[in-house]
């Protein structure tokens, strides 16, 4: 499968990239942004995207790297590779849930190319969508691209493609913020506000906007963190369900905790009520299981992937329970 025709833009600085965006990014159909390329390039071959311009960020060195800001947390450039996240000492020491999640993404080769920004922005996925043009003709297309039917929930009008990044679940637990830059200026938002919950338009990101940095606050540091990923193979696979848990303990009780899930909804989601269910408790099987049930209620897996929805929902329960127990140190 060949790539569609496009013009490649290769800015050397963020300013140059913003110039390119100002000039060419009138709509998302005209311009796509590439960093590691592990998500975009196969999709372009499948003609899911046929942009006029591709903006290649890889040569903007200022967007790469992990910087510790004394007393105010850590700043991660969007182009930082997942391998670099996986092997970062400071992240491993202070925000271990993120290194753990990063280490589960795809395979070592793909982590060398894939970036943290790309993992946050990752397109939502569905067996009815991530297919070649010829295949999609055979299925009559789908609501996310060129069609009017959601094959996984045909009675409705929404797209249910699943958000399938691993690191955002960890970042949600860490209350991460992201910096978004456009020719019109700069803004900083909490990651949980970045996602819409819609499978076919899942990010609050205008065509001329770039996600440039991720911020981890000092207050989110030093939690015990665990990420658990359901997949069929021990490598390569996208998550079929993922759960991140962070817990801070004090005197054997939970002082603070957060739980987030991924790959079972069109967005990664913080499990509401989990913090309340855990705070002040000494974690035992019953507590952990209650949190698992909460997580399973938050999950809405559909037939977007090979394993059945009910299995994935059940695994959200089991994996959450196990992750809570592990993070609580039981």
């Amino acid at each position: 499968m060949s790539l569609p025709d496009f013009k490649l833009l290769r800015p050397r600085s963020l300013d140059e990239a913003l110039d390119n965006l100002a000039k060419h990014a009138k709509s998302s159909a005209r311009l796509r942004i590439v960093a590691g390329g592990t998500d975009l390039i196969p999709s372009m071959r499948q003609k899911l995207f046929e942009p006029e311009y591709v903006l290649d960020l890889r040569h903007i060195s200022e967007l790469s790297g992990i910087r510790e800001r004394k007393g105010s947390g850590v700043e991660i450039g969007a182009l930082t590779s997942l391998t670099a996240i996986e092997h970062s000492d400071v992240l491993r020491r202070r925000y271990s849930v993120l290194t753990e999640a990063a280490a589960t993404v795809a395979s070592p080769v793909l982590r060398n190319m894939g970036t943290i920004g790309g993992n946050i922005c990752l397109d939502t996925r569905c067996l009815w969508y991530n297919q070649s043009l010829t295949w999609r003709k055979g299925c009559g297309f789908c609501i996310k691209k060129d069609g009017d039917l959601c094959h996984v929930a045909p009675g409705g009008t929404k797209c249910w493609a699943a958000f399938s990044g691993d690191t955002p679940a960890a970042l949600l637990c860490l209350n991460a913020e992201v910096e978004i830059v456009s020719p019109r200026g700069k803004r900083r938002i909490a990651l949980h506000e970045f996602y819409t919950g819609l499978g076919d338009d899942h990010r609050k990101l205008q065509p001329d906007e770039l996600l440039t940095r991720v911020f981890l606050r000092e207050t989110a540091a030093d939690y015990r963190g665990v990420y658990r990923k359901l997949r069929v193979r021990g490598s390569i696979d996208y998550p079929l369900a993922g759960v991140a848990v962070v817990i801070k303990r004090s005197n054997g009780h939970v002082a603070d905790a957060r739980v987030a899930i991924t790959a079972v909804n069109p967005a990664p989601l913080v499990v509401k009520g989990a913090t309340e269910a855990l705070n002040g408790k000494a974690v035992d099987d019953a507590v952990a299981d209650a949190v698992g049930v909460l997580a399973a209620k938050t999950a809405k897996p559909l037939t977007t992937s090979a394993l059945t929805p009910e299995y994935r929902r059940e695994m959200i329960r089991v994996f959450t329970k196990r992750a809570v127990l592990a993070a609580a140190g039981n």
Partner: protein
Amino acid sequence: MRSKREWRRRGETKFLVIPSAARNLLLCFANDERPTTNDDFMTDFSIIGKSIAMVDAAGKTTGSGKYTDDLSVPGMLIGKILHSPYPHARIKRIDTSRAEKLDGVVTVVVGSDAPNPYGILPVGHDEYALALDKVRYVGDNVACVAAVDEFTAERALELIDVEYELLPAYFDPEDSMKAETNLIHDNKPNNIEKDYHHVFGDPEKGFAEADRIAEARFIANEVTHAAMEPHSTLAAFEIDPQTGNPGRLIVQSSTQVPYYLQHKLSLVLEMQMSQIRVIKPLVGGGFGGKSEVIPLEIIAAIAARKAKAPVKITYTREEVFWAHRGRPRTIVDLKTGVKNDGSITAVKARVVQDGGAYCSYGVVTILYSGALLGALYDIPNIQYDGYRVLTNKPVCGAMRGHGTVNVRFAFETQLDELAAAIGMDPAEIRQHNLLKPPCVTVNGLRVQSYGLPECIEKVVERSGWRQRKGKMPRGRGLGVACSHYVSGAANSIIRSDMPHSTVNIKIDRDGGVVVYTGASDIGQGSDTMVAQITAETLGCTIARVRVIAADTDLTPIDIGSYSSRVTFMNGNATLRAAQDVKKQIATAAARKMNCEPGDLIFRSDVVSKKNGLQGPRGDGRPRPSGQAEPGSASPSVSGHVEGQILRGSLQQKRKDEGPKEQLSFEEAVVAAIDFHGALSGTGSYAPPLDARGGKHKGAGVGPSPAYSYSAQVAEVSVDEETGEVTVHKVWASHDCGRALNPVSVEGQIIGSVWMGMGQALTEEMVWKDGMLMNPGLLEYRSPSSVESPEVEAIIVESIDPEGPFGAKECSEGSLAATIPAISNAIYDAVGVRLHECPFTPERVLAALRAKNNAKRINLTEGVDPTSPARFREHGGSLWYRGKGPERHPLDPSRTETPAAVAGDD
């Protein structure tokens, strides 16, 4: 039917049946004028039985080796194929004019450009290179564009206008068998490609004698080969020097069967076979997926003919999945009876295979499924009803363990259940039902060498079965299973008495040995096997041997790399060719050495006299390879000048000297050329008549000159909350007759276990209304290195009386044991019996929850994996209230299921 005794007697007239101890005493060069298969038995080989590197290893590991898609010729165009978006439709009109007008497009071909039907089996000529009047599956081939590049060709595909008339489609084989109208092929009533009904012995009596009977339905879902190299073909016509018109056709292709490709090209293109040259470059794995003619191979040729330019087509991975020819999803309704002492009294199997839209190897597959119920254990009574059914899905064909794997999964699982029912150890029940070879099974299969008893003993011993079975921690278990496979089909696809393999050897005055073999190395190492057998037989170093393989202009016919036939058949042909040349060299060398040809030993590039005769240092022992005799004058005698032998100087020397005590290989070769005028030899192999099976209808499939045997123990653990199965270790023993190259044999065993584990745990083609939901290696999940267990490969050598140096197959037989070994280990670990593979975590969890009476949740789309009634479809809806693809009103996708109504929240 002849008595066992008579078969045995007949056998002895044709070949030597020698007890292995006595055989080991035999010396290497029997004083026999007739080249027989086994005149070279000895214990001390120099090249056979040694783990040597594959002769093509360097090119593959450095990247310098050329696979078909690496090839390029001047003026070459790229071909791209238009595939059907409909599962079943009549083509009313194709208009290619818009595509033809696109800049860069040279030609567009359609079905009418090559309207002759073909198929791998003579009874199954039902395919067209491009659809003639009907498409029969999503992905069927409609048209092909040849253009200056891939991008242009793909754009042109969008400009081809096809008008279809939709037809109702059939996706489930049991539904398809009920069809009376809108048949997939008009000449196949009820969409049944072929059915067979075999009764051997008296099954009813057998069941009446049984103390315990188990009866159940097993389902094995569909798997595909997933070879690393996608199919690729480069077709080019030579210009005829006399006429200037296109002349001979040269096709380079990723094939396991160059000769069949040449044959089918000849049929479809209406050219003489002699005008077609097929060359097989390096092939990156086949596993059966390249063991027949794949549409692109013919499409490339017809596009090249019309374009008057070379055309290369390489499939995308999705197209590889559509070309498929993999293992059909199979229903096995199985009934087995045993006595309380463990004796199997009868087996009854009804097998339904979902074969997809064309015949392919289907008739053979359904026959293997029945035939290879025999030849593993002693089963006195067998009833077999096999149905190969057509559906509107990609075509199934031959895949590693062809026809045997799914039935073996069912049988070995059921045998385990029966062992449990009568309170017998699972390994013991297998040992209790061994054959007593040499024998002929109830269904006419001749079994000679039979290493199964040793295979079982070895895995039982190495795995600590007796000490550990049943005493492992909760969630961990051991399972055992056996399997077997043919060492080549005794009857070729196109029936004839002609040899299945012929090999030529040429040796010239440079002392180089060139072997011309049709054997197709697809990564399994046949080139290496040929080189080893040649070098061992001629007593030369392997570095002397050049193998020219799989080029129909240069190499004599070998019918291909399938049914695990190459080592046995091409190996035997190579052995005979080498013996032919050796005899000629010996005649000449003996004259120079003043002895009988039979008194000579060829070894390590030296021809010397046998033990007891006067020889160098009086012992006649050959020297280790590469070591020159101290003080030997051989280099100067053979007169090396820049790698050449100066014949004149040698003759001069010879005149000066008297009879010699030994000759270097080169001297011996030169002596032979002097004596005979030229030095070449030939050998061929056809399976013996008494190995070709019984007389019943369908008896031609299953017979083999020899069978390989495997036994495996798998150790697994099961996570009872998630249903995830981890395979920790597999002990896999395999009787390959003799391991010609042990490291290669171990590689094949490990590969078989690994591939079997894929089918057991993760690999499954997922279907929804004829759409393949996972046509790629991301969603079709072959195991990665992470979940590959330790495999302890154990070689068992039964030394087959007819195999080359005693060798049998080693590439396929092990696969089938892995799946039931794992299912039986799951039972040992957590007490659930899965009757549907793969044993994905959702299926295992569903079985566990049912066993524990947990609250029912629909983990498996309504199909109970412990008692599956039907094939499972992927969830969701292809079509819903007028939305979705166009499909015929009677298409199964248009039946609304209650689950389909899910809305927005």
